[in-house]
């Protein structure tokens, strides 16, 4: 690591996340003056221009890549037009013990005086919650599902290679061309398209203006800089900022800066879920690196330093804090930028290059919270690259995660995407499959499968509240075998899904009408040509996902009932229901019997695994292929991020022996501690699911460091990955850390500030996790050498 990177890294790690009201105040100012005078797209683009023109510009000491979302590193913007924090929210953010954001009195004052008076009742969240149906609220509050769009704009946006070939001035020409093609004679949407396209053009100007202001600042700083070397750097930075993103980048440095301005533009315009990702970074930047190296403009070390600068920039942008009830919960600073390495070219060849290795080195050396990175492993990925990734994994920060590039492409082709587009795609956020730069793939929230089973075991009445939420599906004591119970579960599930979709579509339309994203729309293929916003079906491909949580807990619960109630008859349904309702009071022997002796998903045991397959079949039947109003198609995802802990808290005892309130299984992993036959059996179980039918699955595996020691340990890990992917696995991630270390970190968090662990699709600081999440990670079965 160079001295420069050491210093920048330290500054980034040491900076305390803070809340900045600057964006909120500027936005309020603009809306107050212009709302009602412009079309919505032009209002949004005008606001974006206003922000780019007025926000504080920051260039830090020693930086080579420049630009921050807020006025300073880790100063986080808010988005009151979507969700308006209350003064109480801000005080909680400032004071909560974990993942807090420093909020100054001046910021609170600005909110009290300027922001809240304008936005309360006008923000999208306020408007939506005033209209949401009672049935939805009842399910939502009871913890049957979450809703992504009630807090943040639809996201999961990753770029393809377009921004490196086409500057924004050229994009504007395309936009003007598209405007000339509008059919004013016959197209009833002509005006909407024209306004949207005008907004896109204005958004280009805004991003160019933003870059120019950095050039101006850099020039001023260069003039005042006593150190000649730094002055020269600042002049080069100014030159780059005058060039990109207005024009296409000419070299590696310009390409990185062009990306970073596009990244900042999208996360300034809105607060989309999972921020923004460069997607296939090594694929797109490899040619710049190679040419610069050949022409003597750049050394490997310089490229690594520049890439490190980008890494640090991403780390400087913590996630925007939430509002309302969730403000009191700890969350994560992670905003889920997930850089894809390796993978396939459009033609289906191995896409890795020297930059893939450099990026892994950067990931390993910097050990930052953000960005996440993953290796897309195809059958054509060199063993050396996979092994290098395994080496980084063994160092224990939980990254890179590993994806099966062949399965990812196959899944997308199955969803109807062109093979070249599919191969150039990858996975963003945690594990979500998408066609980078060409697709709006929008997540609508998590759904709590085990709790829906409990609904079926209680005739549609929510046991916690005593309220009837679902249809009456009958007394479980009268069910004839597992099929009877399963039919009741399916009826409840269908009802929950329909209730959720109603509101998902409601919010989806609100975003299209009230919060279009013209800048993002410039970056994603299809929006200019169609004259439609990214949030309104403008992208080349449009997908909607619901993420289902607790597959392991659900499958184990069905398997336990099948084994003990229906097959052996050793436990009566009545006894089981009583035990569940009392959270196993006086029934510890029964609880342990079901925990230890029932078949469990994750042991390559068809008695449980076949149920997991059946559940996925049902989810596909109920949701897959359904149209969404934006012009998208629904698919299913099976990830939980941290929601399996929240859902667990909201869910009573389950028939697999789980106690009320305990975490549910995460992603498509087995229930915590249920996998007793080692990682190969787990992978075999997951290999049965037909994962390419989904938009993504997630497998967590934990290893003790001793199990992976030496070169053989690396080869063993690589072979496990190859084996799993040969079975159609989508994703696997590893925590390589021993329990003693985790316990020590709980006792003395101050000594373990930098202990990164894999949570669920991303890494986080262990000491920043709340106790429930910490315990959940410790409870995952740790594979040791048998």
């Amino acid at each position, binding site marked *: 690591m160079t001295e420069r990177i050491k210093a920048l890294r330290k500054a980034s790690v040491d900076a305390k996340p803070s809340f900045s009201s600057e964006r909120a105040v500027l936005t309020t100012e603009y809306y107050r003056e212009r709302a009602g005078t412009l079309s919505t797209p032009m209002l949004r683009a005008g606001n974006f221009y206003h922000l780019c023109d007025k926000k504080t510009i920051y260039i830090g000491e020693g930086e080579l890549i420049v630009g921050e979302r807020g006025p300073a590193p880790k100063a986080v913007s808010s988005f009151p037009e979507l969700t308006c924090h209350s003064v109480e929210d801000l005080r909680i953010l400032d004071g909560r013990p974990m993942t807090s954001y420093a909020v100054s009195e001046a910021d609170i004052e600005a909110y009290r005086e300027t922001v809240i008076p304008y936005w309360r009742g006008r923000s999208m969240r306020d408007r939506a919650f005033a209209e949401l149906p009672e049935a939805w609220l009842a399910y939502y509050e009871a913890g049957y599902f979450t809703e992504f769009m009630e807090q943040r704009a639809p996201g999961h946006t990753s770029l393809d290679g377009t921004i490196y070939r086409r500057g924004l001035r050229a994009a504007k020409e395309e936009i003007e061309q598209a405007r000339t093609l509008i059919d004013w004679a016959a197209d009833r949407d002509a005006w909407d398209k024209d306004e949207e396209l005008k907004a896109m053009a204005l958004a280009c100007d805004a991003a160019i203006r933003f870059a120019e202001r950095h050039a101006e600042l850099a020039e001023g700083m260069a003039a005042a800089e006593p150190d000649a070397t730094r002055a020269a750097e600042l002049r080069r930075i100014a030159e780059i900022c005058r060039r990109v993103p207005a024009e296409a980048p000419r070299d590696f440095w310009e390409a990185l800066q062009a990306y970073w301005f596009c990244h900042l533009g999208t996360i300034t315009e809105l607060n989309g879920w999972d921020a923004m990702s460069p997607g296939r970074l090594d694929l797109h930047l490899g040619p710049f690196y190679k040419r610069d190296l050949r022409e003597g403009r750049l050394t490997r070390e310089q490229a690594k330093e520049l890439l490190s600068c980008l890494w640090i920039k991403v780390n400087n942008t913590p996630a925007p804090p939430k509002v309302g009830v969730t403000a009191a919960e700890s969350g994560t600073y992670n905003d889920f930028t997930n850089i894809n390495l390796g993978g396939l070219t459009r033609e289906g060849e191995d896409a890795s290059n020297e930059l893939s290795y450099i990026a892994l080195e950067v990931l390993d050396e910097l050990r930052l919270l953000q960005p996440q990175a993953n290796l897309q492993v195809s059958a054509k990925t060199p063993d050396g690259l996979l092994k290098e990734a395994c080496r980084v994994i063994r160092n224990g920060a939980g990254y890179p995660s590993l994806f099966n590039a062949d399965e990812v492409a196959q899944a997308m082709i199955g969803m109807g995407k062109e093979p070249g587009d599919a191969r150039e795609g990858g996975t963003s956020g945690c594990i979500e499959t998408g066609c980078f730069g060409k697709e709006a793939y929008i997540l609508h929230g998590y759904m709590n499968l085990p709790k829906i089973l409990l609904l079926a075991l209680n005739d549609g009445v929510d046991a916690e509240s005593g309220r009837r939420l679902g249809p009456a599906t009958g007394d479980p004591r009268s069910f004839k075998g597992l099929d009877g119970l399963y039919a009741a579960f399916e009826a409840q599930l269908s009802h929950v899904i329909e209730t959720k979709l109603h509101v998902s579509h409601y919010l989806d339309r609100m975003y299209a009408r009230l919060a279009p994203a013209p800048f993002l729309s410039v970056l994603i293929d299809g929006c200019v040509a169609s004259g439609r916003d990214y949030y309104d079906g403008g992208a080349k491909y449009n997908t909607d996902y619901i993420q289902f949580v607790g597959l392991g807990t659900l499958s184990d619960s069905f398997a336990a009932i099948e084994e003990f109630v229906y097959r052996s008859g050793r436990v009566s349904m009545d006894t089981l229901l009583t035990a569940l309702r009392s959270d196993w009071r006086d029934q510890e022997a029964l609880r342990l019997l079901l925990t230890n002796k029932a078949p469990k998903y994750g042991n390559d045991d068809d008695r449980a695994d076949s149920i997991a397959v059946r559940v996925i079949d049902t989810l596909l039947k109920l949701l897959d292929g359904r149209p969404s109003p934006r012009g998208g198609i629904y698919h299913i995802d099976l990830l939980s991020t941290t929601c399996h802990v929240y859902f667990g808290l909201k869910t009573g005892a389950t028939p697999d022996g789980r106690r009320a309130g305990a975490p549910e299984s995460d992603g498509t992993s087995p229930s915590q501690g249920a996998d007793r036959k080692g990682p*190969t059996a787990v992978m075999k179980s997951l290999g049965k699911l037909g994962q390419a039918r989904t938009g993504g699955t997630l497998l967590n595996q934990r290893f003790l460091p001793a199990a992976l020691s030496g070169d053989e340990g690396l080869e063993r890990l690589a072979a*496990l990955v190859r084996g799993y992917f040969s079975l159609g696995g989508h994703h696997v991630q590893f925590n390589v850390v021993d329990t003693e270390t985790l316990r020590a970190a709980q006792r003395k968090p101050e000594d373990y500030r930098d202990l990164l662990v894999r949570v669920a699709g991303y890494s986080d600081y262990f000491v920043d996790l709340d106790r429930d999440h910490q315990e959940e990670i410790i409870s995952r079965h740790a594979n040791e050498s048998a």
Partner: protein
Amino acid sequence: MTQAGRVAARAAAAERRGLVFDIRRDAAHDGPGIRTTVFLKGCPLSCAWCHNPEGLSPEPELSFNASRCLGCSSCVTACPDGLDPRTRQRAAGCAACPAPCAEACPTDALRRIGRGLGLAELMAELRADKPFYDASGGGVTFSGGEPLMQAAFLEAALLACRDEGIRTAIETSSFAPPEIFMRVARGADLLLLDLKFADEGLHRLHTGVSNAPILANLRAAAREGLAYALRLPLIPGYNDAEVELTAMAELAAELLASWRAARAARAARAARGLSAATPGGPGSAVSSDAGLGGAPEPELHILPYHDSGTGKYALRGLAYPAAGTEAPSRGRLERVASIFEGRGLRVRIGA
């Protein structure tokens, strides 16, 4: 074996049943790559330090872990004879009983050690991890107990694995009649051969049997050039005296020389264009390596003593004969390794 012989062997094998006390997937230390290890029950030796005492008896057994017992008495209720398995009040019929008592136990405090498996059932479990064997160069290891105690079943299982393209290893004390040892050994792709003592007297004292048949078998395997590794369980106070280690090192060197000669002869035959017919015969994975000079040289693995087996004795109500033995230090292990390395052997500490 002739074609007709193999057909007959397969027909006979379908009938065979083995007694298995564990099948462990993704086992480390039992050969290369990702492996499944089958633990066959029953052993003619009684090594003082044995860490798998549940493998000693050739009969099924019950084990009881009082610390896991809830006191729910489900086992008593389940016992067809109304016995209390927790108090070791067991009847003669217990060994043959399918043990509903253990099945009823909610915490696995009570466990049945040893289950009879037909070859088809065994193979269903062994082929489960085939994708991982293929990805890693791994396979199946037969261990014990002493796997050669169930030689016919073992031989059938090795043949079945070979039919399915699964590479095999056997981990053995080599205490078996020579014709049985060699017949089984030829069916495996790798032999993991214990080397406990060179000295006959010490061997008898601490394992209960003579090492004469063992040494003869080791020499026969080396003389035939079969792929093997020697495994020395280093047990302080038992086999770590300088004189004993030196004797074992000399034996290991002798075996290595013999193995090299066999391989060289095989390579020479191949070079003369003769058929590389070996006693393993066509279809033998060993013979496919023959004559290419690429076969890895036999290694010596030093397996340091560990006391992880101690608890298993307590569960069975037995005293641990090697109680009080301490694991050798790193420095000691390196010193021992150097004795073998000094005689030209490739040594690995740990498996």
